[in-house]
C-alpha cells in the first residue's frame, strides 16, 4: 500500500540545523504535529501536576507533619487541580482528537489549520501564565504568589479583599486564555467532522472515536463558554470594582458556584467521552469483533451529553438549596447512570465471545471498564442529596472523582498511548515495560484511591493541610501516600518506555494491530498529506473490507 505513497523530496534530517527543525515545529499548522505538541505539552504538565500531588501526599503522610506550610499546601491543591484539568486533561484529549480525527475520517487536515495552531498556542500560553504566577503573583501588595483559592475559586475567596496581589488574576486569565483555545479547537473538530469526511463516510459509518469527539466538542462549546463568561465577570469585579459576586453590595456568592459548576460538571464528560472513544476503538480490535451496538453507543453518548448539562448543582447540595432543586438534581444525576450503563454493557458485549488478546492497550481498557464502573457507583451514592450532606467536602468525594479521573480517564488514556504510539512514531512501545507499567500503576492506584474512601467516611475533610493523630486516619493516610509513590514509579516506567521505544522499539509497520479504521492504512508515521489520494469507504470497517474482499462488511449494511 505504501507503494503509491508520494515521494516528497525532503532535506536529510541529520544535515539540518536544530533551529530549522524548531522553527518548523513552532510555525506548524499540520494537525499531526499540533496533536503531538498538545500531547507533549500535556505530558509535561502531567509531571508537574503529579509532583504537586506528591507534595500534598507527603504532607499528609503523618499527623502534624510540617513538610510544607499551610499556605504552600493551599497553593499546591489549587495548582494541582487547575493544572490537571485545564493543562493536562483538556490538551491531551485535543491532542489525540487532532491527530486521529482527520486520519480516521479520511481527510488531509483539520478544517481550519491556522485556527488549530492559534488554539494550541493560546492553551500553551495559558499554562505558562499560570506557572508564571510563582514569580509574578506577588503584585504590588507583596501578598501570596501562586493561586491559593482552590480550583473552584469560590466567591468571596477570589475577591480583592481576600485574595490581594495578582495570584487570582493569573488563575483567571490563564483559565480564560486556555478556554478560548479550547473553544477554537472544538469549533475546528466539529467543522472537520461535519465538512471534511471522505466520500462514503456517512455519519453512520464514522468511527466511534470521531462520533464521540464530535459530541465532546459540542459540549465544550456549551460548557467552556459559561466559564469564560464567569471569568470575565470575576475580572470585572476585581479590576473595575463590579459587584457580581460581592455579597456586601447585594451580589451573590452562590451565582458564582452555579456558573462554575455549569462548566464544571459537563467538563467531567468532556474529558470522559474521548476516553469512551478510545475504549470503543481499542476493545473491538483486541476482541477481534466489531463493536457491539454501534447505533446505541452513539445514542447513549448524545444522551449523556444532553443529561449531563442539567446535573451541575449536585456539586452544591451542601450549600442548602430548596427541596425541589435537591430532588431535581438527584434525579438527573442518577439518570446519567442509565446511558453510561448501556455503554458498559456494550463494551462487555463486544468482548463477549471474542478472541480477546491481552496486549497492553487492552489491559488498560479492561482496567478502565472495571474502575470506571466503581467510580460511577460512588457517583450514584453521592448523587443522593442526603448522603451528600453527610460526605460532601470529605475525602470520600476526593476519592470518588480521582477514581473517575485516574481510574477511568487516565487508564483509558494510557491504553490510547500504547495503541496509537506505533502510528505516531512508527515504533512499538515495549510490551514488557508496558505490562510492568500497567500492574504497578494498577496496584498503586487501588492502594491510593480505594483506601482514600475510608478516611472520608470517617470524617476527614478535604483541603486540610494536617490532622490530629488518633482519629483512625493515620495508617490509611500513610498507605495512601505509599500508593501515590507506587503510581509515581509506574509513571516513570511509562516515560522511560516512551523514550526508549522511540529510539529502540520494534518497527511498527502500517498496521501492527490488524485494525480496521483508516488511520492504519497509511504508513507509520503518516506522510504529511495523510492520504496519497482521498479514500472512499463503503462500510464502518474499511480496512476489514480491504483485507477480506470475499466477505466485506458493506454486504451487511
Amino acid at each position, binding site marked *: 500500500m505504501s507503494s503509491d505513497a508520494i515521494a516528497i523530496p525532503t532535506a536529510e534530517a541529520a544535515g539540518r540545523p536544530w533551529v530549522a527543525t524548531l522553527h518548523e515545529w513552532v510555525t506548524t499548522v499540520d494537525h499531526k504535529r499540533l496533536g503531538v505538541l498538545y500531547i507533549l505539552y500535556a505530558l509535561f504538565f502531567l509531571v508537574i501536576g503529579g509532583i504537586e500531588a506528591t507534595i500534598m501526599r507527603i504532607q499528609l503522610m503523618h499527623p502534624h507533619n510540617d513538610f510544607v506550610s499551610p499556605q504552600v499546601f493551599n497553593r499546591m491543591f489549587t495548582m494541582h487541580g487547575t493544572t490537571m484539568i485545564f493543562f493536562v486533561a483538556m490538551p491531551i484529549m485535543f491532542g489525540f482528537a487532532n491527530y486521529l480525527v482527520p486520519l480516521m475520517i479520511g481527510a488531509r487536515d483539520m478544517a481550519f489549520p491556522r485556527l488549530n495552531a492559534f488554539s494550541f498556542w493560546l492553551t500553551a500560553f495559558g499554562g505558562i501564565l499560570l506557572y508564571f504566577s510563582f514569580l509574578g503573583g506577588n503584585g504590588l501588595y507583596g501578598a501570596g504568589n501562586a493561586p491559593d483559592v482552590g480550583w473552584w475559586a469560590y466567591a468571596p475567596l477570589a475577591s480583592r479583599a481576600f485574595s490581594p496581589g495578582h495570584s487570582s488574576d493569573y488563575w483567571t486569565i490563564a483559565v480564560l486564555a486556555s478556554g478560548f483555545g479550547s473553544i477554537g479547537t472544538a469549533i475546528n473538530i466539529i467543522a472537520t467532522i461535519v465538512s*471534511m469526511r471522505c466520500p462514503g463516510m456517512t455519519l453512520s459509518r464514522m468511527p466511534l472515536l470521531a462520533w464521540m469527539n464530535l459530541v465532546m466538542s459540542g459540549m465544550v462549546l456549551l460548557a467552556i463558554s459559561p466559564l469564560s463568561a464567569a471569568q470575565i465577570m470575576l475580572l470585572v469585579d476585581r479590576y473595575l470594582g463590579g459587584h457580581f459576586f460581592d455579597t456586601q453590595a447585594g451580589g451573590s456568592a452562590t451565582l458564582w458556584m452555579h456558573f462554575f459548576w455549569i462548566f464544571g460538571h459537563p467538563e467531567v464528560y468532556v474529558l470522559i467521552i474521548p476516553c469512551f472513544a478510545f475504549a470503543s476503538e481499542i476493545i473491538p480490535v483486541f476482541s477481534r469483533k466489531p463493536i457491539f451496538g454501534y447505533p446505541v453507543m452513539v445514542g447513549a453518548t448524545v444522551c449523556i451529553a444532553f443529561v449531563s448539562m442539567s446535573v451541575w448543582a449536585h456539586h452544591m447540595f451542601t450549600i442548602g438549596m430548596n427541596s425541589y432543586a435537591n430532588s431535581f438534581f438527584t434525579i438527573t444525576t442518577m439518570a446519567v447512570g442509565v446511558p453510561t450503563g448501556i455503554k458498559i454493557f456494550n463494551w462487555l458485549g463486544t468482548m463477549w465471545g471474542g478472541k480477546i488478546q491481552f496486549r497492553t492497550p487492552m489491559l488498560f481498557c479492561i482496567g478502565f471498564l472495571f474502575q470506571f464502573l466503581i467510580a460511577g457507583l460512588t457517583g450514584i451514592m453521592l448523587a443522593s442529596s442526603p448522603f451528600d450532606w453527610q460526605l460532601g467536602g470529605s475525602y470520600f468525594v476526593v476519592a470518588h472523582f480521582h477514581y473517575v479521573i485516574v481510574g477511568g480517564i487516565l487508564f483509558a488514556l494510557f491504553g490510547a498511548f500504547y495503541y496509537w504510539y506505533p502510528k505516531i512514531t512508527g515504533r512499538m512501545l515495549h510490551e514488557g515495560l508496558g505490562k510492568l507499567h500497567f500492574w504497578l500503576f494498577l496496584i498503586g492506584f487501588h492502594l491510593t484511591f480505594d483506601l482514600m474512601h475510608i478516611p472520608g467516611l470517617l470524617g476527614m475533610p478535604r483541603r486540610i493541610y494536617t490532622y490530629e493523630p488518633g482519629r483512625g486516619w493515620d495508617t490509611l493516610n500513610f498507605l495512601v501516600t505509599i500508593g501515590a509513590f507506587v503510581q509515581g514509579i509506574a509513571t516513570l516506567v511509562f516515560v522511560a518506555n516512551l523514550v526508549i521505544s522511540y529510539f529502540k522499539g520494534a518497527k511498527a509497520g502500517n498496521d501492527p494491530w490488524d485494525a480496521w479504521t483508516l488511520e492504519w492504512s497509511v504508513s507509520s508515521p503518516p506522510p504529511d498529506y495523510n492520504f496519497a489520494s482521498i479514500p472512499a469507504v463503503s462500510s464502518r470497517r474499511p480496512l476489514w473490507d480491504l483485507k477480506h474482499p470475499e466477505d466485506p462488511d458493506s454486504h451487511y449494511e
Partner: protein
Amino acid sequence: MSTIATPLPETPLAWKLLYRGKVGMACLIIAESAIFTIFVVAYLYYAGKSLSGPTPREVLETPIFYTVCLLSSSLTIHFAGKLLERGRRGAFLALWLLTIILGVLFLYGTGQEWLRLIYQHGLTISTNLFGTTYYSLVGLHAFHVTAGLTMLSIVLLFGLAGRVGPEQSARVEVLSLYWHFVDVVWVVVFTVVYVLGR
C-alpha cells in the same frame, strides 16, 4: 490505495458536505450564545436587587432609533450578499458601506447613552449591581458590534481594491451570519434591559 475499500459503490457517489466556514461560524455562534446567556441570567437575577440607586426605571431611555439602525443593517447586509452572488460589485459595495454606517450609528448611540448615564446620573460599573450588570451586558454586545465592524471594514477595503467578487460570496455569507447573530443578540439584550429590566 486510491480506494481503500472494496467493492466500490456501483454509481459514483454524490458527495457534498456543508461548507466548513458556515459550520465553523455556526459553532462560534453557539459558543457566543452560551456566553451571552450567562450574562443575561446574571442581569435578570440581579434585576431590582441593587442596594442603592440609580435604578433602571429612573435613568434608562429606550434607544428606539439606534435599535432600528442596527436591525435594518441586517437587511442591508443580506441584500449586499445577494448582490455579490449575482456579480453586481458596485451595488454590493454601496449596501456594504450602508451596513457599516448603520453599525457605527448604533455604536454612537450606545456611546451617547453611556456618556449621559455616567455624567448626568453618575452611574458607573462600580456604582451598584445595576451598573455592573448593565455595563457588562451592553458592553459585551457593543464589543461584538465593534469586532463585527472591524471585519466588515476589512471586507470593504478589499472590495474597494477590487478583490471581492462572486467567488468570495460564500465567505461574505459567513461574515453576514455573524452580523445577523449580533443583531439577534441585541433583540434579546433590548428585551431584557429596556423592557423586562424596568
